[in-house]
């Protein structure tokens, strides 16, 4: 064991050594021209699906071609990007990434992680100043103040450590909307106009009256109780775990979600047969034979989840404002400490997260809501280029843009993913009537202590 500890210490020493070393020799932006001669031949990128690769291919000008199976992208100068993809769910991606990061210092140059991605749910774990696995952007020669000035402020805060040093950058920000079926709206409310429907879902109280109307005609408002979780989870006042503490605080908002979901489920506003998200039942709820009126999705959800699952005529969906502003997802790009390709990494980050034209192109090609304020305001007005056929000709950006500007990021902690996942798991037994409320609480405590051995207690709101 001692050997192991020594090697970890060594690694820590070596990485800090390397950092200062690299900083010294490259001399800040001086390295820009020094160019590719010293760069490694392989850029290893850790991510959880093809999303990032497709965007790199679309806008990074150096891309030459990608192999047919999607594992290697060759750049014009011959450098290869190796995509290391592991599924996000169940912590698999983080587990594999952590293994690689622990070996980072000893790895051969071409084996080193150069870029890795993280999600809002756990970005905090990797931007941690002490762990120092994600390089500060300034060490790469990127100045967040000027280079990233046009980004939405909350995305920059999210990617920063406790000292305010930004250690990652994103191309997307994920304001969420309410997406609803036009045919059901016409039948129940006599109109499918987004403005009018928006009035009917403007806050939770109005929403519940609307749910009653839908239920009377035999429709469910949402598919599952998991669909509304983000809206509550995003508005917590305190982080799940405060820095330096070993106690999980469950926010009152989360308990509100449990209470409201139970009421909604018992009243028949939600479909009892659909348990959670990302399963076949939930997918089917997006089909034409389903009785579900609406989903709560950010831009990517509409494009990647709703659209492939919809089997009816195009133009049957529309978006409007959600009952509460929320943000769902967001992939952050980090330069990994110890990378042997700092120049390429810098180029990629700038080209994907700071170049207004590129981001507009991503918005057009992939319907992402991208991370430059000025261009998103333009898109919101530009109905000609940004209207969506799937949404019956509606320009969704008109609705996304105001939500994005109002997003206040819920306080994050490194434990968010586990907490969010396990609290939904534990309480879904309660919601389905399998266990009582107190048992669900105990089950959450058991599960969370198993996942995070360093946590010693769970504090519930009074």
């Amino acid at each position, binding site marked *: 064991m001692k*050997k192991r500890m020594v090697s970890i210490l060594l690694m820590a020493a070596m990485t800090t050594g390397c950092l200062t070393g690299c900083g010294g020799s490259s001399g800040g932006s001086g390295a820009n021209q020094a160019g590719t001669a010293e760069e490694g031949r392989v850029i290893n990128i850790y991510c*959880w*699906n*093809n*999303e990032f690769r497709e965007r790199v291919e679309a806008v990074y000008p150096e891309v030459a071609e990608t*192999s*047919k*199976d*999607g*594992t290697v992208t060759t750049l014009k100068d011959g450098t290869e990007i190796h*995509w*290391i*993809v*592991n*599924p*996000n*769910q*169940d912590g*698999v991606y983080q587990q*594999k990434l952590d*293994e690689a990061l622990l070996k980072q210092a000893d790895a051969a140059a071409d084996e080193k992680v150069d870029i890795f991605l993280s999600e809002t749910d756990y970005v905090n774990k990797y931007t941690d100043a002490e762990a120092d696995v994600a390089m500060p952007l300034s060490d790469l020669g990127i100045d967040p103040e000027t280079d990233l000035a046009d980004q939405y402020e909350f995305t920059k805060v999210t990617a920063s450590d406790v000292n305010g040093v930004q250690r990652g950058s994103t191309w997307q920000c994920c304001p969420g909307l309410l997406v609803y079926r036009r045919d059901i709206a016409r039948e129940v409310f006599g109109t499918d106009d987004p403005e009018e429907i928006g009035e009917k879902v403007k806050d939770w109280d109005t929403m519940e009256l609307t749910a009653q109307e839908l239920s009377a005609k035999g429709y469910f408002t949402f598919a599952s109780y998991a669909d509304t979780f983000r809206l509550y989870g995003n508005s917590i006042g305190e982080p799940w775990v405060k820095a330096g503490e070993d106690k999980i605080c469950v926010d009152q908002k989360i308990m509100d979600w449990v209470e409201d979901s139970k009421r909604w489920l018992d009243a028949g506003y939600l479909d009892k047969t659909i348990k959670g998200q*990302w399963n*076949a039942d939930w*997918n*089917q709820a997006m*089909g034409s*034979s389903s009785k579900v009126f609406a989903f709560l999705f950010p831009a*990517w*959800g509409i494009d*990647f*989840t709703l659209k*492939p*699952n919809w*089997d009816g005529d195009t133009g049957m969906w529309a978006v409007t404002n959600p009952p509460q502003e929320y943000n769902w997802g967001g992939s952050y790009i980090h330069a990994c400490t110890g990378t042997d390709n700092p120049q390429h990494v810098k180029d990629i980050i700038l080209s994907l997260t700071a170049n207004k034209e590129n981001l507009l192109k991503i918005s057009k090609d992939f319907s992402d809501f991208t991370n430059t304020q000025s261009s998103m305001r333009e898109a919101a007005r530009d109905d000609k280029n940004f209207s969506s056929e799937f949404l019956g000709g509606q320009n969704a950006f008109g609705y996304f843009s105001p939500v994005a500007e109002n997003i206040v990021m819920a306080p994050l902690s490194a434990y968010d993913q586990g907490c969010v996942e396990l609290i939904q798991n534990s309480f879904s037994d309660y919601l389905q009537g399998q266990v009582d409320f107190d048992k669900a609480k105990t089950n959450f405590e058991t599960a969370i202590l198993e996942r995070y051995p360093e946590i010693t207690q769970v504090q519930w709101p009074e």
Partner: protein
Amino acid sequence: MKSKGPNYFRSIFAHVTLVILSFMCLFFFYILFVNATRSHGDLQKGFSALPGAYLFKNLSNVANDGSFPMLRGIGNSLLVSGLSAAICTYFSALTAYGLYAYNFKLKKAAFTFIMAILVMPTQVTAMGFLRLITNMGMYDSLLPLIIPSIASPSVFYFMYSYLESSLPMSLVEAARIDGSGEFRTFNSIVLPITKPAIAVQAIFTFVGSWNNYFVPALVIQSKEKMTVPILIATLRGADYMNFDMGKIYTMIMVAIVPIILVYLFLSKYIIAGVTLGGVKE
């Protein structure tokens, strides 16, 4: 007359039961096959009893998906399972022969020891195993999935019982008189005699190794070394970018087809091998 009556009804009952059980066994494979021939959109519309026309599209989707290297996985699984089966049966037979044919001081102790570890679940050593192979530099390699199968107490036990009942020591003595060395005796006389037992155990070991999920999931890290069960397990955690049910069903099908093919070719041998003793009469 008297005995024919009840036997006739028992026979009908037996046939009906067998048909029902066989139906249960095959039904799930049929559904799997049907679903693998339909597109995600078709599957959304609900279940159908008849196959669709989407099989080849699904197959090419599976073959071309770099994040789930299925073909590579099958290759790895074949390699690991084949080698495991080979070395496991060989060394088990060797150990069994060593304990059966020779007398030595620690014989009884060795035998009792193996019988005692027969019950040890592999999982209890998983943690130490992981640390050990990491220290030995075999983390993320296929070797730790193969080599430990040399010590398989249950296969040893089977071989030992088999030798006891089918290898007369006189045969060994005769070979010795002919001047055969001990290893040669084992390889050219003992092994052929134990062939039926080896065949059966080789198949069991192969299948067990092919289906093993726990150890490979701990040991294997990189995509190109993954075996089939790990790839299948990652499907459970499907991501929204990969959520195509047609593809998932096709992948499961691809994962089990090779073993079914092998089985169908060898089934006679497998079943005959297990029941060899009685059939001969």
